């Protein structure tokens, strides 16, 4: 176990950040999943000792992250806010923060250069950060979290603003770090992003931990709840009638040029669709899962 939250609550005045959080984080890569406003950043700020819990106890590597400043030698943190000393170049930024991690002069420069190369930013590293794109800014933040070779890396929404190539590379980097024995806790509000990095997740919603474990278990849990799928068709009434005959269909709603289906077994529906199209001659122009966003998933979990 690298981290634990024991009955932790955090309030900001009247606003609730986290409530009654009891969680243990195992070594390896762990995804912290939740829609915007779920309490992910509060969770990570508590974990990295930036704020103190209003109630309960937080431990990271066996110690209190707010009180024990030495602990930060072993931690790398990539914050979510887009905040920098804009006049610094990427290289100066990473070197400065690496030196503040206790790494001496030349070694700090060497490690900073290595980390910059690892996030593919060598060519841009000597430009001031104020000229960086959003994706580059995310990558330079990531580099400063890696440069001092920490045991635990905490990443708050690291893929935000990255282009698809950047996302893919960062996802691979996080998996590599996990394979090298580094523990990574990474937050995201996008389920499939986290699935690309790890099988281990913690689900947060409205400041509470709703589930924790293997992503398969979470998926199984989610499968107990109906998924919404929208099918575009020229014959919505006929398609709706055919769908109602299927098992595990919870509801069907007919709209002008589409049908919205709620099913507890989306995979079975996907298997049956080609047969409906071919045997019944029902045209299906497209299908769209409305559950790509975690907000919808969490609505099910908390219903």
């Amino acid at each position, binding site marked *: 176990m690298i981290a634990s939250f024991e009955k932790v609550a955090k309030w*900001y005045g009247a*606003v609730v*950040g986290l409530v009654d959080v009891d969680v243990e984080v195992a070594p390896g890569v762990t995804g912290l999943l939740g829609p*915007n*406003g779920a*309490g*992910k*950043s*509060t969770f990570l*700020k508590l974990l*990295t*000792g*930036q*704020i*103190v819990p209003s109630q309960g106890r937080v431990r990271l590597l066996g110690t209190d992250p*707010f009180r024990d*400043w*030495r*602990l*930060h*030698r072993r*931690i790398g*943190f990539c*914050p*979510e*806010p887009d*905040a*920098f*000393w804009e*006049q610094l170049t990427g290289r100066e930024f990473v070197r*400065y*923060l690496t*030196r*503040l*991690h*206790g*790494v*001496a002069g030349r070694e700090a420069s060497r490690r900073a250069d290595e980390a910059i190369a690892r996030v593919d930013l060598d060519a841009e590293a000597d430009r001031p950060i104020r000229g960086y794109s959003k994706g580059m800014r995310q990558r330079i933040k990531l580099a*400063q979290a890696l440069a001092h070779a920490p045991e635990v890396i905490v990443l708050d929404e690291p893929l935000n603003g990255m282009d698809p190539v950047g996302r893919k590379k960062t996802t691979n980097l996080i998996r590599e770090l996990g394979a090298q024995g580094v523990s990574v806790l990474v937050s995201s509000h996008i389920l499939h992003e986290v699935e690309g990095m790890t099988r281990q997740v913690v689900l947060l919603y409205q400041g509470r931990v709703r589930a924790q474990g293997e992503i398969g278990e979470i998926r199984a849990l989610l499968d107990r709840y109906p998924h919404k799928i929208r099918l575009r068709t020229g014959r919505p009434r006929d398609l709706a009638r055919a769908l109602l005959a299927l098992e595990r269909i919870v509801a069907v709603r007919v709209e002008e040029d589409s049908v919205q289906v709620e099913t507890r077994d989306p995979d079975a529906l996907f298997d049956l669709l080609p047969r409906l199209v071919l045997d019944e001659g029902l045209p299906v122009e497209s299908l769209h899962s409305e559950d790509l966003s975690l907000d919808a998933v969490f609505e099910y979990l908390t219903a």
Partner: protein
Amino acid sequence: MSILSSFLLIARHAFAQTLRGKRLLLLLLLVGLPVLLSVLISGARQRSGMLDFQMWSLIVLLRGVVPLAALYLGVAILGDEIEGRTITFLFTRPIPRSILYLARYAGAAAAFLLLLSIAVALSGRIFARHLPVDPRGVALTGAIAGAGFLVYGAFFAMLRLFLQRALLVGFLIGFILESLIMGLPPGGFGQISVWHHLAVFQAGVYPDAILPGQEVLEGVGADESVAASVRSLCWILGGSLLVGAVRITRSEIRIPSSVA
């Protein structure tokens, strides 16, 4: 790498931040004002050189530029990093928060003291071109102004750790409250005013200077010694730094958009 190295790194960064961009421009305007006034005053030749210089330093430097710059920089010492949310990078380094706070104070103070000493030296030279001014007096005036900046700056920096609106509250304390206290009849009230101690300090070093400044120094008791005022200034400086360091170590600092 030691705590001292971290202290120096952070102080150097704060020094560079202070002497850059819009902040530098504003500070140059602030320290440029007394230089400009020294040209006007020394050109008028209405008083003896040293008395003019003392009046200039009392009113323009100690009552104007020093507390204004201290308020502006003191509040920004951590305030800028908090509002800019870059404080997150510093709070997640293996450095005691008190060291971070003191290092930023030291860096910003060193930067302003550099500008201030140039402005005082330049003003001294301008006065000396027209009027007989003692170079030692110029140096001591610079030292008193520097001490004033350190004390005011530490106080305002500490205030920012307790209050979001430290700039407004600091202005009310540094200018309105202090002026009210100085306007009160002589008694013990002056002891709580930084300006009072700076004025006593200056008057004690240069007794002649108290004559034309009598109306300004109304609250200063005759028996007060320079040593007592220096001690009081040291207490305010040390106390402010200590309270600030304890505050940042023990309490959570609200960073904008903490709720997520």
